């Protein structure tokens, strides 16, 4: 007979994300007003997006193109026949009191995206997250409450319709996500993809990318899902991760305490780092969807579809794989370099100009990134062009200059651009690799520091660095460091 040890129940979280992503078209989805963010209230409006009587929507063809490209990038099937529907509910920020959206025939379905998570050692684990559907819809306006900073206590409300009619795609994931870190990575990968495509700026602060999370927990091994809770109001990837981890703990604690999980919408409070209940769902809302009679069905011609497909760039996951397998970058480096398409393209142009990938990646990830951050520049604005960076890297590899010289001249190159070689020549910084010249300098240094030489020879080998420094000083930093080391050691040993 063995003593029964109480086994602690293991739980798993079932998580799905609904992401609203604003498409970066110049004009609205069904009318001609600008989509510019941050304009004065009600200045980017027109009779159509205001839903004035008698006005009719006309689909912005760019919206369809962007949605299809996003669908293709998410490995979705593009519907040969799709349509818009009216989703009906009353709210003052919704001009027509119905939203033109897509219900049963979305433009894209049955896709997936791959997320990659690195452990502490930088080893990647990869997972496919299913994409249930992607559909197009119009955004609503924004309420501004007066007399109070929030709805409760306000004495009146004003409506800003600038955002009404801004094009969105809603992307719904399968409930394949199991943790906060997976969810955050999914959202980041989604943002990378839409940015690579150029269909959205993915800016979370401006609300261009908004994620709602559906989350439930269940004991591992059970099939039945737990009660689902929705979390809103996370405006960063780390907030998504923290909100989910917090909510998983909250739900497990509640279940362990014998409480029932309530189907509700909770808000993430960034300040308090917790979720709070916003509203309890009473059954499902009846939006009385029906096909939008003012718009024709959407039929993407096969030739059009192929044209759009051919315009897709290499996507971040493909680039990561290629950088690792073909270019020998570490998963960590590949991830950093591919995070931004412009940086990846800069990197590729640099290696195309002859630089070794690893060295190019190092320069871009360290000194160049630091400079861009400091100056608030994007890499496309950088005066230092990939050719010149490659030139500098090649000069280092050919021992024409030392790595240190490279670092020394970089600030000037970053600021002014131009040829690295020309700059080095102008400054007379070409590395001295002639052993005779270096030996002469060594002899001079040794002669100048007899007591240090004695100590070295007496066993204080750490003085090597001192001598190297003196040789460098004597050669104006131009002596080949490796060669200097070798020759110096030989001479010091006598």
């Amino acid at each position, binding site marked *: 007979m063995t003593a029964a040890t109480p086994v602690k129940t293991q739980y798993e979280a079932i998580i799905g994300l609904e992401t609203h992503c604003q498409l970066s078209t110049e004009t609205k989805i069904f009318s001609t007003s600008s989509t510019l963010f941050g304009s004065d209230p009600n200045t980017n409006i027109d009779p159509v997006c205001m839903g004035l009587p008698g006005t009719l929507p006309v689909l912005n063809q760019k919206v369809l193109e962007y949605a299809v490209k996003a669908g293709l990038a998410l490995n979705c099937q593009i519907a040969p026949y799709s349509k818009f529907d009216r989703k009906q509910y009353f709210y003052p920020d919704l001009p027509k009191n119905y939203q033109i959206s897509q219900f049963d025939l979305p433009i894209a379905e049955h896709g997936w995206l791959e997320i990659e998570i690195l452990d502490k050692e930088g080893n990647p684990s990869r997972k496919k997250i299913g994409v249930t559907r992607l559909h197009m819809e119009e955004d609503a306006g924004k309420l501004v409450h007066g007399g109070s900073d929030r709805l409760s206590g306000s004495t009146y409300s004003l409506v800003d319709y600038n955002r009404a009619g801004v094009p969105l795609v809603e992307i719904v994931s399968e409930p394949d996500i199991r943790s906060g870190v997976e969810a955050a990575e999914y959202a980041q990968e989604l943002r990378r993809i839409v940015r690579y495509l150029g269909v959205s700026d993915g800016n979370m602060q401006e609300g261009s990318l908004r994620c709602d999370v559906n989350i439930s927990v269940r004991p591992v091994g059970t099939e039945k899902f737990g009660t689902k809770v929705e979390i809103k109001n996370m405006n960063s990837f780390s907030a998504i991760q923290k909100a989910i981890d917090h909510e998983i703990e909250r739900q497990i604690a509640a279940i362990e305490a014998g409480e029932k999980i309530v189907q509700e919408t909770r808000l993430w409070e960034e300040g308090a780092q917790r979720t709070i209940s916003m509203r309890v769902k009473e059954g499902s809302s009846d939006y009385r969807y029906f096909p939008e*009679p003012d718009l024709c069905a959407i039929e993407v011609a096969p030739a059009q579809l192929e044209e759009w497909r051919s315009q897709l760039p290499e996507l971040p996951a493909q680039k990561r794989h290629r950088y690792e397998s073909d270019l020998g970058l570490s998963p960590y480096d590949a991830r950093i370099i591919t995070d931004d398409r412009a940086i990846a393209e800069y990197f590729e142009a640099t290696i195309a100009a002859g630089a070794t990938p690893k060295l190019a990646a190092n320069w871009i990830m360290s000194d160049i990134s630091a400079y861009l951050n400091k100056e608030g520049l994007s890499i496309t604005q950088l005066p230092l062009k990939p050719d010149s960076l490659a030139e500098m890297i090649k000069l280092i590899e050919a021992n024409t200059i030392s790595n240190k010289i490279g670092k020394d001249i970089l600030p000037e190159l970053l600021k002014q651009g131009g040829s690295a070689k020309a700059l080095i020549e102008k400054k007379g910084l070409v590395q001295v690799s002639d052993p005779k010249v270096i030996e002469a300098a060594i002899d001079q240094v040794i002669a100048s520091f007899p007591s240090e030489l004695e100590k070295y020879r007496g066993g204080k080998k750490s003085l090597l660095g001192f001598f190297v420094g003196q040789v460098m000083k004597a050669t104006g930093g131009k002596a080949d460091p490796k060669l200097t080391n070798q020759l110096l050691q030989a001479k010091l040993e006598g």
Partner: protein
Amino acid sequence: MASIRELHQQLTTKERSAVEIAQAALDRIQLLEPKIRSFLHITADRALAQAQQVDAQIAAGQEISLLAGIPIGVKDNMCTKGIPTTCGSRILQNFVPPYESTVTEKLAATGAVMVGKTNLDEFAMGSSTENSAYQVTANPWDLERVPGGSSGGSAAAVAAAECTVALGSDTGGSIRQPAALCGVVGMKPTYGLVSRYGLVAYASSLDQIGPFGRSVEDAAILLEAIAGYDPKDSTSLKVDIPNYASLLKPDLKKSQGKFRVGVIKETFGEGLDGVVADAVLKAVEQFKALGAEVQEISCPQFRYGLPTYYIIAPSEASANLARYDGVKFGYRSESPDNLMTMYTQTRAQGFGAEVKRRIMIGTYTLSAGYYDAYYLKAQKVRTLIKQDFEQAFAQVDVLVCPTSPTTAFKAGEKTDDPLSMYLSDLMTIPVNLAGLPGLSLPCGFDAQGLPIGLQIIGNVLREDLVLQAAYAYEQATDWHKQAPKL
């Protein structure tokens, strides 16, 4: 009672100026409005300014279009920039659109002179114009009777010669039925032929703007001016518009074979007045006399049009009319306590009974659990009705039937019985469901001297054949030459 061509000639020969013609129309409106009440707004200033422009063009020796200087009425559900557009509803009492509908913009470009906005059933929902929140329009042939609806103001104004032609909108018969009851020509074109941009939506998949005239030719001229693709309306058709008026011939000759007329068997049943049936059958004889080959055609699904319509139209209306909430424009309840009461009071006070009835029906038919049984099923029946017509048009060039089962009824006679009112549109509704062109023209009078309408229906985009049949019939008869005594 001059026609467009007669007025055009008066203008080009400088017999009368456009200002004189406009002023004469405005004077007649002034004289008759106390009796007829066709107009909700009379736009005298705009009319005279437009007329002056036409006169200036004539004086400068420029060529003017057929419609230049022609007085025209516009149903008050078409947006006119800077001019109230009420839809006959209290909820849009003070609504002044900041934009122009495509049809009125096109008309203004031709030099047509808009004399006013005409009365209608609230949001075009009704068959007698009694659902207007503002006034009841009288039938010029008998002032105690209704002009039909919902475009009753336009039909009565044309019948009373307050204007030469007018625009109406037709969702289930709202041009053709009042045309029949007022003894004028009214036409609903193929769905998509005329842009709906600026037409305040009732049921988007059925609504279509069309012309009223005292003759087939006048209606054809107006149709040609408003038809055509509009990039602002995604449902408008990219087709070339024929010169309809030039196609009109006083006979029914075709390049090949005989002109084939089908008589819809199912329309001659219960509920049809004998006098209407007689007049329509006489008209059929007239087609034979004109050389047409006439046959009876069965459209078995025809009778399902009415119930199908009363699911689809209210469903769409319930969404289209959701925007009237007091938030951005139109009427807002005086003293709401909160957002919810602002919505409910605004809509309770702003909408009339028929509009509320249809919003409720539509909200119900689209609700979860009922959608499949009502809306989806209605769409399937709609397809069957279309197929009936497709089969019919494989055999004939046009179909004929009564426009309305009765002649004009008395005001107040049906207002308490919505179902009997709905039956007024029994013959016209299937045409909207199938998206086909349909025209009503006078084909007789009953014992009280009330006009009877003959409906001619064509296949998709065969306005030419409908107009040819109508014109040939009109030229062989003199019903259209009679005018109400006012």
